[in-house]
């Protein structure tokens, strides 16, 4: 399994849709729900996750032969924690308002299952290049998922997209969408939609 696994390119593509971390693997739900009130926060979060994920994957892959099995997870988390601290500080320096808005969700990247899962499943067994491309694929997949949810929530909830007004003036904002219930409902329904599309495609490919 370790040697004859998918190539780097395949792993990259897989992360986008077939193994999308949010819709397919149900990982990283906390940020998915918490920061998708608007596109800006969502994309910032996606960026931070991508940074941490890629760095952690690469580092894990580099040290994969040194790891004892029962200490593996501990080491992963510590590695991730270090990178998250970096990301947090950088963000606080560069985009202070955004960092305030994201609040505790940036440090919570440490326990984002996407990262630990990729470290465990992929990076600890694969070469650096494969691990990096896998991380990139997963990051983009994660970003896409966040973007889809944030788009729905921001457009319906605030009538804007990246802060720009896209709905007509008369559009009554759906206040619920930017609040916790809206996050749950949107993700729940989008998840159903994703499953449904997946099922339909599978049926179609089965029929052919």
């Amino acid at each position: 399994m370790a040697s004859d696994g998918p190539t780097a390119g395949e792993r990259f593509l897989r992360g986008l849709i077939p193994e999308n971390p949010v819709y397919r693997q149900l990982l990283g739900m906390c940020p998915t729900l918490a920061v998708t009130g608007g596109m800006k926060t969502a994309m910032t979060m996606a960026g931070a996750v991508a940074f941490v994920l890629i760095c952690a994957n690469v580092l894990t892959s580099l040290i994969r032969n040194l790891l004892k099995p029962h200490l593996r997870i501990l080491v992963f988390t510590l590695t991730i924690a270090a990178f998250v601290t970096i990301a947090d500080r950088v963000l606080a320096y560069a985009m202070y308002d955004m960092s305030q808005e994201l609040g505790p969700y940036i440090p919570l990247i440490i326990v984002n299952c996407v990262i630990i899962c990729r470290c465990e499943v992929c990076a600890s067994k694969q070469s650096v290049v494969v691990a990096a491309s896998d991380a990139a694929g997963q990051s983009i997949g994660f970003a896409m998922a966040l973007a889809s949810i944030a788009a729905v929530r921001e457009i319906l909830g605030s009538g804007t997209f990246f802060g720009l007004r896209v709905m007509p003036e008369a559009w009554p904002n759906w206040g619920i969408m930017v609040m916790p219930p809206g996050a749950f409902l949107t993700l729940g329904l989008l998840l159903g939609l994703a499953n449904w599309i997946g099922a339909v495609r599978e049926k179609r490919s089965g029929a052919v």
Partner: protein
Amino acid sequence: MEHLSELILVAVGAAVINNFVLHYFVGICPFIGVSRRVDMAFGMGCAVTFVITIAALLSWVFTFYILRPGAPLAVMVLGAGADLSILSYIVYIFVIASSVQLVEMYVRKFFPPLYKSFGVFLPLITTNCAILFACLEIMKYVAVGKGAEPWGLDTSLVLAIFGGIGFTIAIVIMAGIREELDHCDVPKSLRGAGITLIVAGILSLAFMGFGGVDRSLKDILHPPAPVAAAVDDDNGEIPTTMPAASPDSKPADLTLNTDRRAAR
């Protein structure tokens, strides 16, 4: 008395009003994963509460004595206050991971039946955001700057325990509903996580009813001075999370009367 009512406020706030799961979205993974059966959910809730308490205890100790600006350690070693808070994330996760592992091994060795019923959830908890979130919340109030009183150990523990209880309440309610849903004709694509999230959405809607209860509670516990209260009122829970009201579009504020009065 003052302190006690402070604790009550923290407790109520953490348990229901700003429920960890339904308001802050932390601990979603176990909330979805382990809410199939009521007894399992209850076990998970207990395990989380237990671990969260231990983690809060340790993280308070570390934050208070080592990490916060002006902590005794730095003063002792360097002779001056130093900010070690950059270490905080690493320390917290380290503390959580090791204490979970320790607890797991201990329970497994000495209470096998207990381990069988709830120990299996323990490894899952390491990556439970709720624990880290509680630590971060505590850090926020312990590592305050000059002028404010840092939280004591008791407040931190109350936050942790009641946060855990809030999590337990949410996950047990969810498990009750999901047991029922097992026998319902839920659309295939929504089964599992989808319907759970939708139910969580409605639950979170219901929990919004608690909005403002903490403030009223505060008023009851220590009645405000007549003048100060009017000003205080406008920083309510709900209005801040609502889209800001702009004067020409429709006002989107629930406490309309208050606002109008304020505007006047």
